[in-house]
Each structure stands twice: as C-alpha cells, then as structure tokens.
C-alpha cells in the first residue's frame, strides 16, 4: 500500500499532465468509433428488412449463432480444466506450455485454418487415418466450422479463467482439502464458484470471437451456404456484389458484439476489482 503523502504528491504531479493524455485519448477513441459510424452511415436502412429477410442471411446468421454457441460451450468444457491445469503447473518450462496454448491468439486465423486442414483434413495427420477407417471427412461440414471457431476462441477463455484462478487465495483449496474434500470436489464446490465471474466473462469473449471468425473457417471448413457459410463469410462474398447488403449484415454482427460486450461487462465486475 502506498503511503498517503506520496499518493497525494502523485496526484499533484499528474494533474498538469492531464491534457497531453486527454488529446491522444480522444484521438484514440475517435479512431475506434468513427469506423462504426461509417458502417452505420453505409447501412441501407430502408432495405434492411429485405436484406435481413433473405433465406441465405437467415441461414448464415443461424449457423453463426449455433457455431459460436457450440464453440463457447466446448471452450467451457475443455478450457476451464485447461486453465486450472495451467494455473497449477509448477514444473520447469511451464511458461512454454502456456505460450503454446496461447498460439492461436497471435496466429493469423487463416494460418490456423490451414493448420487445422493439415491435421483434420482427409490427407491430414489425424484426418487421413480417420477417413480411411471410418470414411468421415471433417472439412466442409458444420462440425468443422465449430472446430475452427473453438480453435481461435479457446485461448480467450483460458486467459480469463487462468487469471482469475491465479488471483484466488491458494489457501482456499488447501483448506478444502484439509477438511477432507477430494481434489475434484474442491475444484467443483470451492474453486469453480469462486471463479464463476471469470468463466462467464471468458465465455462471452470466446463467443464473440467465435461469432466474428472468418479466416480459419474459410480455410478449413470452406464456404457453402447452409452448411459452412457463417455470417462473416456471407459478408465477405456479398461485399463485391452488393456492398450495401454487406453493411446490413455487418450491422447484425455489430449489434451481437455490443450485446456480448455488455454481457461481459456485467459478468466481470471482479476483473478490475483486485483491491
């Protein structure tokens, strides 16, 4: 804890420095906001019902919602245990393992999609034996869309949950164990409720990332209306033929993202509140 006199001194020093911060802050804010206004200006409001009522739009939106939600649930089932494991790792080189998990965060999505294709595609590392033994082809299917979305969005959830887990008092788990709880019971009844807000925030972030996913999807799952054409893919392909329709579809994604951010904000009051 800083002592009160230095805190007061810092306040005095920072006050004259406020406007050199405020100007770039305002520019940064405008830079982020203006493209949204540009998009809103390009939306053909009168044609909105017609564009949004098209069958392929309904299909693309439905597929986007289904795949983003499935991906978020997969992230929950796989990502929370993964985050727990990462937060408990004590061996040498655990930083490296952690970095590996976060690779999809920095990898260009289209590279991720190609990597998925080289792994789960018909001639891929796992896809080839799978195809030979069972005849299953993963790409060009809705599960492939979900896999691509999960691949790119899982790190978001892992980062959020791992951060929350690390912020917990380790004595919480120790106490539970000392009182006779099994490791699984302690995780389920003590840790999980304590990190629930972090899990919820992570899920919303993962869901939003999955909803906007483009590169990995088009590279791995392909583009077929009704099966693999999500809203971002539909936007991309209508951009050349009908830019106004693309803006209308973008509006749908924008509204969904804003809702997600609102949800994440209300779910995660603890993220800023480390005290």
């Amino acid at each position, binding site marked *: 804890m800083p002592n009160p006199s230095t805190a007061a001194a810092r306040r005095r020093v920072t006050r004259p420095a406020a406007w050199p911060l405020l100007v770039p802050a305002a520019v940064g804010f405008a830079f982020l906001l203006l493209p949204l206004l540009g998009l809103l200006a390009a939306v053909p409001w009168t044609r909105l019902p017609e564009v949004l009522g098209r069958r392929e739009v309904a299909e693309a939106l439905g597929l986007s919602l289904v795949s983003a939600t499935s991906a978020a649930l997969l992230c929950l089932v796989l990502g929370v245990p993964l985050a727990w494991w990462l937060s408990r790792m004590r061996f040498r080189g655990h930083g490296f393992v952690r970095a590996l998990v976060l690779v999809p965060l920095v990898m260009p999505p289209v590279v991720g999609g190609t990597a998925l294709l080289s792994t789960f595609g018909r*001639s891929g590392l796992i896809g080839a034996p799978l195809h030979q033994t069972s005849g299953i082809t993963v790409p060009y299917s809705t599960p492939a869309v979900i896999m691509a979305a999960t691949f790119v969005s899982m790190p978001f959830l892992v980062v959020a949950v791992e951060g929350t887990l690390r912020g917990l008092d380790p004595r919480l788990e120790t106490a539970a164990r000392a009182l006779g709880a099994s490791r699984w019971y302690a995780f389920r009844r003590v840790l999980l409720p304590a990190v629930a807000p972090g899990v919820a925030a992570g899920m919303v972030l993962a869901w939003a990332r999955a909803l906007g996913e483009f590169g990995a999807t088009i590279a791995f799952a392909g583009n*077929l209306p009704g099966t*693999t054409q999500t809203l971002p893919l539909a936007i991309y392909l209508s951009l*050349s*033929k009908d830019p106004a329709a693309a803006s209308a579809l973008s509006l749908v994604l924008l509204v969904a993202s804003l809702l997600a951010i609102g949800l994440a904000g209300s779910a995660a009051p603890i993220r800023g509140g480390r005290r």
Partner: protein
Amino acid sequence: MARRPSHAAALCVLLTAVGLTGCQRQDTTELTVAAAASLEGVFTELAGPFEDEHELRLRFSFAGSQELAAQIVQGAPYDVFASADTAQMTAVGEHALDPVLFATNELALIVPDGNPAGVTGLADLATGDVTVVLCAEQVPCGAATTRLMAATGEEIPADSLERDVTSVLTKVRMGEADAGIVYRTDALSARDDVETVPLPEGREAGIVNEYPVSALAEADDPALAGAFVSYMLSDVAQDALREAGFGTPGTEDASS
C-alpha cells in the same frame, strides 16, 4: 523479436515475401497492378523485362477479380487492372480508361494426383459421391462454372464455394477435394500435383473467359500504365501467356 528491425529491413523482408526484388532501389517509380489470381504465375514471370525497360518497380496485388474490382470502386490506388472476365472490368465503370482483351482462358476439371475418386468427367461430379470444390459464383471462375452447369444441365453439388481460383487449386492439390473446376492455366501450373480430366463440354458450350487489362483513372502516370497495357499485347507477353496455357482473344481456338 526483442529488437525492432529498421523500417527498411522490414520492407525488404516484406518485398522478398511477395516475390519482388529491388530493395536497393527504393527511390525508383512504382507501378501498381491489380491482377486476377489466375494471372499470378505469368505476370510475375513477365515483370522483370518490363521493370528493366522502364526502370521502375512493379507491385502486384493478386486476388479474385471481384475483390479487386470492389477495391477499385472504393478508390484503391492501383494503376492497372487485369481482370479474369469482362464483367468485373465493366463493374469498375469509368475507373477503367480503355480496356483491351489480351488473353482468354478455359475451364479445366482437375483431380488430385492419382485421381482417388476415379473421376472421368463432369457427369461424375453431379452424382454427389465426390467431394467437389468450385469457385463462388461472385468470382469469374465461378461465374464461368455456373454458365457451364446451365449449358450442360449438370447440377454439381459443391462441398465448398471458394473465394478465388487459387483456393480451389489448393484444396485439390492438398487432396482435400476429389475434384475442382479451375482454369486450364491453373491446371497447367500445378501439373506436378494435379491431373486434368478432359472437359470437352466447356469448349462445346463456348465457355471462354476473356481477360481485359486497362489503365485506371487513378494512375499516377497514365503513360506508364498504358505502357504496361501495350506490353501485355506484345509478342513477348503473348508468347509467355500462350506458354502458360492462355488463349489469344479473337481467335476461334486456343492452342492445344
């Protein structure tokens, strides 16, 4: 990645990555050419002599013609546009100063090496037992494929509609599709990895894409942009185009 490389070094890395040379003469003029994805091989090959003659550096933007046309309409600073069909040249409207046809291309049916699904012709694709990737209808190769389906009455259930012809080629090349429809030039360029199945229906139905090239109204130096257009009509360029499998516009039949 701890140290930040200088901007010049970063630029060199970038330029090498896109297959251009000439980091040592950054002050020379540049000519930016937006070209259909199917032209990548032959344009890259033709760049050198033109750069030497005019002492400039060519920068290429290869993508689906529909994407480039949309960029041009939005004011992208390209000097020249080479499209894989006349529809996309028409789409840029007055941005194109004087389009001329310089090449033609035909559709080709390709399968991965060894033809795992035993595809013998267009009719096999319509059965639905074969994994097929096609170009999306918005892309010139996809528009041509749609015309082919209309002309032959064969409805091909595609497993994916790709954003450019290169993506179709990649999926077949990787063995992730049993068949794909690309241009004859793509089939030729990838002949080590893919096999071509005869597609007589295309020529019978007269499905030939005509490639126009034009200087753009945005060109910094319209004369230089015009010189590139003329270069495409020169013997050197026409020979290279023929070698790559393109046809000559105005002639009834393309070679072989």
